[in-house]
Structures are given as C-alpha cells and as structure tokens.
C-alpha cells in the first residue's frame, strides 16, 4: 500500500498514541481496541513494514465514520481520517474492500445516492420543483429527500414564511461527499464534485445555496475550494440561514417553555465550526438547552450515512450511545439539525424523543 507523505507522518505519530481514545464514537460504543486511531495506525505501520498483509486491514479501515473527534482533540494536530480515507481508496482499488462496502459503493456510483435511486428521482417522489431563477437555491441532497422529508418540508415552509424566494436543486448529481468518504481524493471523486459545481453554477441567478446536509455543505465549502472547484454562489448551512432569519425578525417563533438537548453533527461543529446558530434558534423559541458533555467541538457522532450504508449494526450502537448521552441530561427531547443524524437516531427504540429543529421552528412560527 502506497500512502502519501502526510499519511505516513500521521501513521508514525498515531501508531503508539492513545490520547484520543476517549472520544472515538465507535470505540466508545463498541468497546473494541481496533476502533481508535492508534490501532488503525499500528496496522498501517505494519503494512508499510511488510509485517502484515494489507488485506488483513480491510474491514478495520471501514470501521470509522471519519467524524474527526480524534483530530479535534489532538494537541499536535494530527488527522487520522487522512490516512484512513487514503487506505480505503487503495483497498477498494485493489479489490480488497469487504463485500458490504463494495455493494454500498457500487450503488452510490450508479445512482449518486446510497438509496437505490438518483437524487432527482428521490425528490420527484415529493413533487415537481419548477425552476424560478430565484436568488436562493436549496440543496436538499438524496439523503434528506429519502430519509428526512419532514425536515425538508419544514425548511421550505420556513423559507416561505420568511418571504424567501427559492429554487430547489433537482439535478441528477451528488456533491461527491459520500464518494470521498469511500474513495478519498481520487480523480473520479473530483470529477463528481466538479460536475456538481457546474450544475449549481448553472443556476445563474442564485446568490446563495442553502445546504441541508452538513456533509454536503462541508464538501462545497471546503473540499471544492481545496480542489480548485469554483462555486459562484455563497454556500450556507440550513441552520445558519435559519438563525439569520430569526435574528433579522423574518421568522418570529412563539415561545414555549421546554428543556431540550442539542446534538451537534460532527461535520457542522468540527469542520464548519458552526455550533451557535442552532442554539440561538432554540433560545429564540424559548427553550432551555441542557448540554451533553460531548457537545459542540467534542460532539459524539452517531455514525453517519456512509457507515450506515454498509454497517447498520454499528449504527445501532453508536446511535444508542448518543441517545444515552441525551437522556442523561434530563432533557425532554433531543434536537437534531442534520438528516443523517436523524436517520441514524431513528433506529433507537429507547430514549427521549428525537425532534428536528426546523420542524419545531416551523410549528412555532405562524
């Protein structure tokens, strides 16, 4: 396996280090030694030194949700997802990835979503969205269209209530976010991202793209620019946009007395460093927010849509562990802002109710 210089450097640092094991959501939920960067780096080290065959590491490299909790805690700034992503691409390229992974990836490459249909078809199930050449473009994404339609509906309703004219991006293309998690930085993935950017740029009147899924928002805001892929419009997350509508008085929620806790999606809180917008909205709704210990930058990921596509048995555990965190706060409900987290948590049968921020806000806005 040929790893890049950056990956090798990270492997050399992490191979004997256990300083971030307390935050890995998989390690915590599954209790397995393999689920932390040290173990994965040690395996990569041995592969490099030819004391281990790379095939032996295939399953392990995919037992990670690339949530970055490890990097967030690393005081010397190492990022294990860098070598884990790279190893995945190589394992897939060498035909060594586990069958469940290959099956999920094949579906993704065929449809552009992990749900056996294109994003366009997923949206079409809910109606037709005529192009209006509006200044705001809503990027729903396949996941939200398939798994979290009430969230999408509520968000569209909120835009309507705030008097925002918008188009819905209903094209047959993904941002490449899920593909990137499977394959890493490959030309094919960059091509998918570039195609997405072209289609977004084709909405010439759009000044703002609002993105519901934080993974897609991260992709557009960070990865596109790292790869030199230009977007004309300004990319905003749905939470930041909603918070702004509330701050500007365009949405005036009726106040209710409730105590809730908020689950920060890993990519929103860590990669995009957006932790406050959702909290300001909740406060504007009259809610008291009781924080879980692992919140904001230290949030505990529920697993995410890519891991869910090939390892639902892991998601059951990571999601249940998060539910326990939430219940431990004594809050009445766990509020989510991301379709992937909501889909993960929907498998939990025990615990406090999981509620969507936009659905709640829509209900409280006349």
């Amino acid at each position: 396996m040929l790893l890049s210089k950056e990956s090798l450097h990270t492997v050399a640092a992490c191979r004997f280090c256990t300083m971030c094991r307390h935050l890995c959501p998989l390690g915590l939920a599954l209790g397995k030694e393999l689920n932390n960067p040290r173990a994965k780096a040690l395996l990569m080290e041995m592969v490099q030194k030819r004391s281990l065959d790379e095939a032996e590491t295939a399953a392990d490299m995919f037992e990670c949700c690339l949530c970055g909790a490890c990097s967030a805690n690393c005081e010397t700034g190492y990022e294990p997802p860098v070598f884990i992503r790279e190893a995945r691409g190589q394992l897939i390229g060498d035909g060594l990835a586990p069958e469940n992974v290959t099956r999920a990836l094949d579906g993704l490459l065929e449809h552009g979503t992990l749900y056996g249909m294109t994003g366009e078809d997923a949206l079409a199930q809910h109606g037709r969205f005529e192009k209006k050449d509006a200044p705001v473009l809503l990027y729903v994404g396949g996941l939200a269209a398939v798994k979290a339609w009430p969230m999408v509906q509520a968000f569209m309703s909120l835009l309507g209530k705030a008097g925002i004219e918008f188009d819905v991006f209903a094209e047959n293309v993904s941002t490449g976010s899920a593909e990137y998690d499977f394959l890493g930085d490959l030309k094919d993935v960059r091509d998918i991202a570039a195609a997405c950017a072209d289609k977004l740029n084709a909405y010439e009147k759009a000044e703002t793209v609002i993105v519901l899924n934080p993974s897609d928002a991260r992709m557009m805001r960070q990865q596109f620019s790292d790869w030199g892929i230009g977007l004309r419009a300004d990319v905003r997350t749905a939470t930041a946009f909603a918070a702004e509508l509330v701050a500007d008085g365009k949405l005036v929620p009726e106040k209710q007395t409730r105590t809730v806790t908020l689950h920060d999606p890993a990519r929103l809180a860590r990669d995009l460093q957006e932790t406050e917008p959702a909290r300001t909205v909740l406060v504007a709704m009259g809610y008291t927010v009781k924080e879980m210990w692992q919140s904001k930058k230290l949030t505990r990921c529920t697993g995410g849509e890519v891991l869910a596509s090939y390892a639902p048995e892991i998601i059951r555990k990571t999601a249940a562990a998060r539910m326990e965190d939430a219940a431990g706060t004594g809050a009445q409900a766990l509020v989510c802002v991301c379709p992937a987290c909501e889909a993960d948590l929907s498998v939990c049968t025990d615990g406090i109710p999981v509620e969507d921020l936009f659905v709640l806000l829509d209900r409280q806005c006349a």
Partner: protein
Amino acid sequence: MNDYMLRQICFELEDAVGRENLSLRLSDKISHSVDNFWLPRMYADRGLVPPLPDIVVYPGSTEEVSKVLVIANYYKVPVYPWGGGAGSQGGALPLKGGILLDTKRMNRVLDFDEESMMVTAQTGIIYSQLEYYANERGYSLMHYPSSINCSTLGGFLAHNGIGVLSTKYGKIDDQCINVNLVIPNGKVLHSAPVPKHSSGPDLKHMFLGSEGTLGVMTEATMKLYRKPECRRFRAFLFPDVASGFKAGRDMLQVIRPSVIRLYDEEETKTQIKKVLGFAKPGAFMNVAIEGMTDMVDVEEKHMLEICRSYGAEDLGSDYGEKWWDSRLTFYFPDKALDFPLMFGTMDTIVRYRDIDKVYWAMKKATEAFEGVRFIAHFSHWYEWGCTMYDRFIMEDPPQDPDEAFRLHNRIWNAGVRAAISCGGVVNDHHGVGTKLGRLMKEQYGDSMIVFESLKKALDPNGIMNPYKMGV
C-alpha cells in the same frame, strides 16, 4: 493451540459472550499485541510482530467474565485482561498466547450515590468518560493521571495508579471504596462494602495492584468530591533540590497542597527557561493549593513562609496555571518521548532520608551506559517521603532488535537495582508487568511467598496473566 481446540474453545466462548463479541481477526490480535511498553513498540518499529493472542473476547458484564474464566480454567488456557493498553510495563501483553480479555465493553456507570459521595462503575470505562459523568452532575473523582483519556478504571486499579492531584486526594487506592474480582473458578469475590474497618485486613488492597494476575476486576466504587471553589498555583526556585525536599516535607506537616512538583537541576534548566525565558541554576518547584477560598488564603500564607525559609525565590502563579492547562500536551506525539529514542520512566518512591541517595545511585547506574541521560522530578508527596519520577533517555539506541532488547533490559536492571539497594521500590505507580517481574524477588525476597500463595489459592492453574508481576 491446535485448530480443533481453537474451534472448541471459541464455540464455548461464543456461547458465553455472544458471537459478535469474540474475534479471531488478525488485526484484532495485533491491536492487542502492543501496549505502551517500549519493547513491543520496538518490535513494531523494527518490522517484527510481538506475541499475539489466539482469541480476543469482549465480555459485557461480570457474569460474562465469570463464564469466560471458567472456560479458560477448564482448558487451562491463559487469560490476559486488557483495558486501555496504555500501561507502560507490558502488563496486558499476551505473551503466551491464549485469550485476550478486553474489558472496554464493560463501560457502564451502575450507581451514583450523591448522599455518600460515591460512584460505582464497570471497570472497562475510560477514566475520562467516568470523570465527565461525574462532572455533568457537579462532582469530580479527582484522579487526574496524564493518561486519563487513554486508560480504564480497571487498568488504573490493576496498576494502583496515581494522578497529578494525589498529594491532596490520594492515590487510586485511597479513592477506591470497594472492588470485586472474578477469579478463574468463576466466583466473584468482593472487598467489604466500605473501607477503614477492622473486619480483617482490607481485601481491596489484595486486589488493587494485582495486575490481572489473580482475576479480573469488573466493578468498582470510587469516591466523589465537590469541585474546589478555587485552585491556586505558585512556582519557586530553590537554591538546590535538597532544600526543596525539606520545604515539601515541612509543608505536609501544616498544609495539604494538591500538587507539589520539584525538578532536579537538570530538568530545572528547561523548566526555568519556560518560566523566565533564561536559564538559572537551582531546583524549580510548582505548588497548587485548593479548596474554599478563605482556607486557601491561610494555606498559601504558610506555603510562602516555608518556601522562603529555605531560600526559595517566588516566581508567581503564571507558570502553574499554564502547566495545569497544558498538562496533557507533553504526552502527545512530537512532544512526548518517542522513537528513535530508547527511554523509560523508572518511577520509584522513597522516604525523605533516602531520596538523595536513591537519586544519585539511579543516575549513576543508568548514566554508566554510554549515551544515556537521566532526568527526574519529584511528585506525589507524603508526610514521610515522595515519588521520584525519573526517566532515562538514549538518543541513539541500537537498531538491531536483539541488541536493543538486551540493552534496554540491562539499563532497567541497573536503575531499579540501584533504587532497591538504597531504600526505593521496584515501581511507584506504573506497576511491574512483564518489564520488571524479574526484579520483584530482589525486592521482596522470602516475602514473595505471600504473593505466590495468593496466586496459587486463587488461580491454581496459573491461567491469569502469566509472566507478570513476578508471580
């Protein structure tokens, strides 16, 4: 283990813990073959594979652990308890093959008793997760080792570990109220529900520090503390390390700091540079006092008087606060000791009368090896003595694994023998493991019979963690 027996034993273990909680994956075995001990790390670094277990199991409860041990005991297969694998003594290494028992699925808090200020948890919980649980409810366990994020409750109990606030809040054996121990016949032993009794010797002290050689601890009850109203730091520069010892000893007669760290002249050069920006000869000390503000005011007054009486220069509070905020930073890669160096922490503990002797004897013994540097600081203070946290460092060790292995063990023999000969002990808080097992007999002599008899009585087939702790 032959193929047939492997199948047979796995079949029974799966029945005990569930199929998904048993693994024969090579990667799983490898991830349990290297802990924080330099030798297995050296193996991995040099492209060798350290000894592997045959089977890895992840029990989720006391009952499952009991079943696993009964099976292992019947087949006389070794069992190695493994927590966070952050131990530095090779304590959890599966040296003889067999069953690696990873405790991390046992990660639940079982009882939170605010009235008695106690928390009971399964021992596989990562310590910082237990601390956060307490913090969320307004309390702390006050056990702050540098590996709080790496290690488990059971691991700390098994090595009788220590945290940076120990001078006020004690070692983990002071903080533990009771603990259980599952032994190879499957029975679950319990220490008394509360300590400080006269109902025979406290069994807890036979389980703590036993390093998995007697059985597996699965549940423990620990003390809770309210968070202090204030924590104040002060740094001093003493004319020499001997006056620092005297000041530390005297402080403990009148006040109870949570932290006292005194650095030898060698380490002071680097620490002082951090505080003052220039080198200054002497011995640097960092002290923390905490509790209710008015009490801290009084303690601080006594601390200042005592330090002044030994000629210490007052360096203010900035250093201590910075040290507290970044106390874990030095354990991350690029800051911590790492390859290509050869290194080891030879912490020992000694009475005040002997400390100077032990320091010089260990320094001389280790620095007799060409290229070895010895540094030390003194942390964890008691009325009668303190811990010497000393390290040897070799910049350019042999690349050849055989040579490196021998040299490493020779340096350790020399350093620990020097400590023992001057009134020190094999180890202060990292434990014995496989690293120092051979030296236990040199410390205890005929008294080893106590450990050996206990081992024989509780583990007659010798399945628990073989080749550790010298038993």
